[in-house]
């Protein structure tokens, strides 16, 4: 059996808004490096493929489209690329996939930041480019405005996506620029030729000359090509526009099916987007992961009771864009093995409460999957692309 891939999405104290109030939570440490180092080390002990780290240019909000003034949930966060870099030297195999905004940032800065993370992590960097969907975030920069979604817009993923389509188009340009910059140094550009006094062969450094409607970048990068050549680009998608973005720009897409029928529909939409984009999957594979929020305990009753307690603390039942699984690790293993043949390469699990649900993944789910021959027993590769069975691309500028 081909084994599945497993990632965890790390976010604050977990994905439940009341997770920070759980007995084993460490809410006072959310802004300290030790907290993140411990979580990522735990994920690496579980031999997971990678962790993702959330980020945003505005404070968290219970409302999708605008800020709120709540003080009873986690507010505030650290730059995810820097968190990933901070844990990189403390780990050796696990992939590190930070989120960055691409609407208000400079593509050049973001691209060299991710390339540098790949150097610092010796080939374990990924990147989740994200648009800024909240109009209020634009006021943090004051350079431009972005659409304010209405309350009606947020009732439908398709309506949101349609309203934000120009931002996704720009995001695709940002990824294209980043990819060109990552390739702009050929692997053997550094020559240290004492005879001619040249440190680099400038014929192997390339201007990227990107010209788009909103920005242009000349290049080349200042950062030499990184260990993976192209760090892994991942994106989260719920609707046609982001599926098209994934088909154009990503190496891996996270989707959010509710059940197998929904999964089939979504994967068919992704296939359509890939065809429309004219993407050759043999040359450029697109990995598909299903996202699940998970609450895991020894018995289903315990998991349900824990979710009830958290819901009570939050004053509302947990809601998510992704399916919420509440039960035992064995039952989750059943679900993953049930859904996998629908066309998923792997799953990204979003622990509802940290560290509880992460430890349930690494210490109970992983051994359970392994017993069924469905998960690795040791890392066999050292890079994130390697874990996922992706090859290291040759620079597009290299003459063969």
């Amino acid at each position: 059996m081909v084994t599945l891939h497993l990632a965890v999405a790390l976010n604050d104290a977990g994905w439940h808004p009341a997770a920070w109030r759980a007995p084993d939570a460490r809410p006072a440490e959310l802004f300290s490096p030790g907290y993140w180092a411990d979580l990522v080390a735990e994920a690496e002990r579980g031999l997971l493929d990678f962790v993702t780290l959330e980020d945003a240019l505005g404070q968290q909000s219970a409302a999708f489209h605008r800020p709120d003034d709540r003080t009873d949930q986690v507010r505030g966060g650290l730059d995810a690329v820097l968190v990933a870099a901070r844990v990189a030297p403390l780990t050796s195999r696990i992939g590190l996939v930070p989120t960055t905004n691409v609407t208000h940032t400079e593509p050049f800065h973001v691209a060299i930041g991710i390339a540098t993370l790949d150097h610092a992590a010796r080939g374990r960097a990924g990147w989740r480019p994200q648009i800024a969907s909240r109009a209020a975030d634009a006021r943090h920069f004051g350079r431009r405005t972005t659409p304010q979604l209405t309350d009606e817009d947020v009732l439908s993923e398709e309506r949101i996506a349609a309203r934000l389509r120009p931002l996704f188009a720009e995001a695709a340009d940002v990824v294209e620029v980043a990819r060109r910059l990552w390739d702009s140094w050929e692997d053997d550009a550094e020559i240290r030729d004492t005879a001619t006094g040249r440190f680099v062969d400038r014929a192997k450094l390339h201007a990227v000359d990107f010209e788009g409607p909103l920005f242009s970048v000349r290049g080349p990068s200042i950062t030499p090509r990184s260990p993976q050549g192209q760090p892994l680009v991942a994106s989260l998608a719920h609707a046609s526009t982001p599926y098209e973005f994934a088909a154009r720009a990503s190496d891996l897409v996270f989707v959010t099916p509710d059940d197998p029928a929904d999964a089939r529909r979504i994967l068919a939409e992704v296939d359509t987007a890939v065809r429309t984009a004219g993407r050759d999957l043999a040359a450029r594979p697109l990995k598909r992961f299903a996202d699940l929020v998970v609450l895991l305990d020894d018995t289903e009753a315990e998991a349900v009771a824990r979710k009830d307690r958290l819901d009570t603390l939050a004053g509302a039942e947990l809601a998510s864009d992704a399916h919420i699984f509440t039960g035992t690790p064995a039952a989750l293993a059943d679900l993953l093995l049930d859904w996998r043949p629908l066309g998923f390469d792997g799953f990204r699990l979003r622990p509802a409460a940290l560290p509880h649900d992460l430890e349930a993944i690494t210490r109970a789910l992983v051994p359970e999957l392994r017993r069924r021959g469905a998960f690795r027993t040791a890392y066999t590769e050292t890079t994130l692309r390697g874990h996922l069975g992706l090859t290291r691309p040759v620079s597009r500028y290299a003459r063969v």
Partner: protein
Amino acid sequence: MKQVHLAVQLPAIHNVTVWSDPRSESQISIDSFIRLAQAAERGKFDFFFLAEGLRLREHKGEVYDLDVVGRPENLTVLAALAAVTDRLGLAGTVNATFNEPYEVARRLASLDLLSGGRAAWNVVTSYDAFTGENFRRGGFLDEADRYTRAAEFLRTARELWDSWAEGDVLADAASGHFVREGAGRFAHRGRHFDIEGRFTTPRGPQGHPVVIQAGESDAGREFAASDADVIFSKYSRLEEARPFYADVKSRLAKYGRTHGQLKIMPTATAIVADTDEEAVAYADEITRAQVSPQTAIAHLEGVWGRDLSGYDPDGPLPDVDPEPESLVLKGHSVFRKGREETARRWRKLADERGLSIRELMIEVHGGQTFVGSPRTVADAIDHYVQSDGADGFVLVPHLTPGGLDEVVDRVVPLLQEKGVFREEYTGTTLREHLGLGAPTSPEETS
């Protein structure tokens, strides 16, 4: 006795690094950064400094290829170094032209939190359209606006750092209050920035990261005196350094600041060997490697503004005059201004002393700051500081990554013996290492 402050900079892009030396390793591998940072921490240095690059320099329309080319995004490397060091300050350059305050303040506050209070920001400016070609807005800034934007940028960043007060993260699970009401709320209305909202990142251990500036012009010196905690200067000769030191320190009072609140730290090199004679010979060898025949011609072309590849580096200066309007070297501020005057001065020097092109370039660009036995170098560093030429130095080793070892292992113990350098870190934050007080907030300085 004044205490000496020491920092180290991993050399990049200029011809300091002798990359042809067999001991020279990668300038990009994380191993190199870790090794140099750990050497600095072993030596109880104040901080590790990384400059930034935003566009590769070009020479005659092509990437400049004689020096080390290629470097990482510096704050990302510094965050990684926070994991493998414990006390060492972590300083990076971030340009105030091709960035926005919200993002820079956020990244620096994050670095401060992720390092336990060790972050520093070297604020630099640019108006350079050449560099701007890599950015959304291009080279949009008039030269006259460099410091007005930088000053407002820094003021805005400080407002953002102050938008979370100490203790705004309550994390009180029992009562259900995670943050204090209004944490992170800000509004700044100014000429360069008109922004408002909620800042994401709580106050770091230092309150404000340490602010570094490199000011030479009158405007730069005022900016440093009003706003910086540390100045990098280029005065490596004591007779030039003392007037600069006195001038900048004298400007502090009008901003309500004391002498100790601004540290002046020139960049310097230190060539150490068993004896003074050996060190002098070694320094000469290094300088010749730094100014190769090709480098000598390239530097001359930078000032002459024309192709001089037909000239013999071991021969006399060209008989042609500089072309004042032509820039052959782009992305390098040294060669931008006063080139005709520089050329006149060089020609005079070469004539008087009968120097070849390469000898002239070694004379004007080469040269090491401190050369000698460990005792000689320690005495010179101490004398320079006690004579009010500086508060300390940013050492730029000529070898990556092992170039600091001699200083750490042989010079630092002598400074410690003299009682002018710490034997152990007494604080945990960079502000504490530098003897700086709590940060001043914008209202107090304006």
